[in-house]
């Protein structure tokens, strides 16, 4: 499979009164055509900022992409003009958000909001766009499409709105769909429906999905490839089956241990001790060292590099680095 988008050494920094926050710190990954890549991590680990960086929505004066490259086709998304980026957004790369209730304009009908990108990017006439909007509403599994097209966001439920968001996002046949915690605000039964909608629309158009979530259940269900982020860095990545069966990094192991397993009774779920480090106080060390059960001396003084393992998994941990054994 060809790679669709390649992120190389991306760093996104925010300037605050107290110093620079490295929200995304030198991360690299790629998404192949038709692949679903999940980015997992706690709140504040840089998942959403990665997505916003790809969309070109990091806005000054505080936020800045400090370096790196985002190769999409033959273009570098960080180098092209604003106008070019605007033409890619919603057309070739689209995005859905966590809160469907607030992601749609309350005073515009659903139909018009679906028609908008079609008329803008695909140069459709009003009539064509309306017909396509009806098709799209049906495609995401909402009955009575005509009636829905003429209603306003507050008349629909959260699950329906999220499916409308998906309809808008896939309307122009994007190559990449970024879904930023698309099911977090929905209850469990609706979650399943929304994920199903996502999977179906993916199958129909061979688009790639970059799914950001902290729900490991969603990961297991959707992902081909998983990237685990911690404090702005990738700590482990790999094929979903490998990663779930043989997690290497202590953080990933912790995450998987803290997930409830159906059929097993436990008085208390495991939780990783400690807190995410303050992004302003990061030092030259493994960012996870103070929460890690296997912390060694080297972990406190040097940052591990992301290494390839034999099975294709990559992990950034001194436990697996031969260099650590020499010291």
């Amino acid at each position, binding site marked *: 499979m060809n790679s669709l988008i390649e992120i190389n050494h991306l760093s996104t920094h925010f300037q605050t009164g107290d110093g620079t926050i490295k929200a995304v710190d030198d991360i690299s990954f790629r998404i192949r055509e038709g692949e679903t890549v999940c980015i997992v991590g706690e709140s504040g680990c840089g998942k959403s900022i990665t997505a916003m960086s790809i969309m070109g929505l990091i806005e000054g004066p505080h936020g800045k992409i400090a370096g790196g490259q985002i190769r999409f086709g033959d273009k570098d998304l960080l180098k092209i003009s604003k106008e070019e980026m605007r033409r890619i957004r*919603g*057309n070739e790369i*689209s995005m859905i*958000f966590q809160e469907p209730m607030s992601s749609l*304009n*309350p*005073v*515009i009908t659903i139909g018009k909001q679906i028609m908008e990108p079609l008329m803008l990017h695909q140069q459709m006439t009003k009539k064509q766009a309306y017909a396509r909007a009806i098709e799209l509403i049906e495609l995401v599994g909402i009955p009575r499409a005509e009636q829905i097209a003429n209603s306003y966001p*507050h*008349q629909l439920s959260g699950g329906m709105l999220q499916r409308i968001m998906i309809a808008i996002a896939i309307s122009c046949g994007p190559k990449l769909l970024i879904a930023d915690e698309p099911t977090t605000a929905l209850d469990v039964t609706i979650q399943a429906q929304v994920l199903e909608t996502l999977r179906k629309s993916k199958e129909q158009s061979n688009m790639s999905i970059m799914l950001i979530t902290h729900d490991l259940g969603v990961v297991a269900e959707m992902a081909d490839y998983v990237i685990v982020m911690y404090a702005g860095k990738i700590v482990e990545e790999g094929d979903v089956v490998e990663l779930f069966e043989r997690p290497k990094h202590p953080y990933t192991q912790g995450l998987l241990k803290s997930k409830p397993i159906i059929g097993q009774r436990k008085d208390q779920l495991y939780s990783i001790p400690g807190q995410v480090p303050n992004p302003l106080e990061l030092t030259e060390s493994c960012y996870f060292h103070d929460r890690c059960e296997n912390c060694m001396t080297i972990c406190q003084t040097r940052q591990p590099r992301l290494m390839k393992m034999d099975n294709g998994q990559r992990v950034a941990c001194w436990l697996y680095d031969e260099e650590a054994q020499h010291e």
Partner: protein
Amino acid sequence: MQLSITTTVNKISKARSAPEASTSLFRQSIRQLRKNKLAVAGFVFILFMFLICFIGPLFSPYADGKINPAQMHQPPSAEHWLGTDLLGRDVLTRLLQAGRISLTVGLASMALSMTIGTLLGITSGYYRGFIDQLIMRIADLLFTIPSLPLLFIMGALMSEWKVPTDYRLYIVMIMLSLIGWPGVARLVRSQMLTLREREYMLAADVLGLRDRRKLFGHLLPNVFPLLIVIGTLSTGGAILSESVLSFFGLGVMPPTPTWGNMIDAANNVIDFEKRPWLWIPPGLAIFLTVIAINIFGDGLRDILDPKQNTSR
């Protein structure tokens, strides 16, 4: 006047943190408006005023406004329901013709100031930075000068430069909207500052929409309810300001009649004491029209203000 509009509208903008859909809101609003008897009465009166002012003179035998020295200063009679003025013209006919002008000036200057205010408010609230500073400082500048003296100066300038009477009407409209737009611009801007940070605007960004589309397609509909209320309330204000100007002979000049320059008769002691039919009707017309507009505007505001509704 200006102050009360500003505070009431601020209330609205605070209360309407989550605006509802416009069409369904529109239907709901009409249903609620019907319950508010006073507002309905106000609306009916405004409608009535418009109808008789624009249609009434067509049925009047004195609509040509000819001077008739034989009929000078007649008190109300079967022939002249509201008497005649010093040139023998029918006061009722002139009152209605004046109503056309006064209402038109009120509406037109409202429309103009709303357009300017909205455009500038949207631009400065959305883009912020230098353009915002520029627009808002100009607005502040206009705010610092009390509007009535400013209007007087401009009116006096018009007289000084001998602007033809026909044009004065239009210049008065422009003058009034020049005074009116800063208030509108401030309100729209403050709304825009919160609206632009809404998640659906980020979603609009993600769709790659052009700025023009974001401003007029997505943001403008969200401030519409606000605009309707300020628009209604400021029409009354504009009618009043025009009357004041014309009363002092600085606005629209005779022979073009307006309610303001008709009350000018009250400046003359003899007319004031002996011929009340000259100045009471235009006075009442201004009073009732402006009150009706304000009551209607208040009614609209109550509907669009969910907080007040629940407290009732």
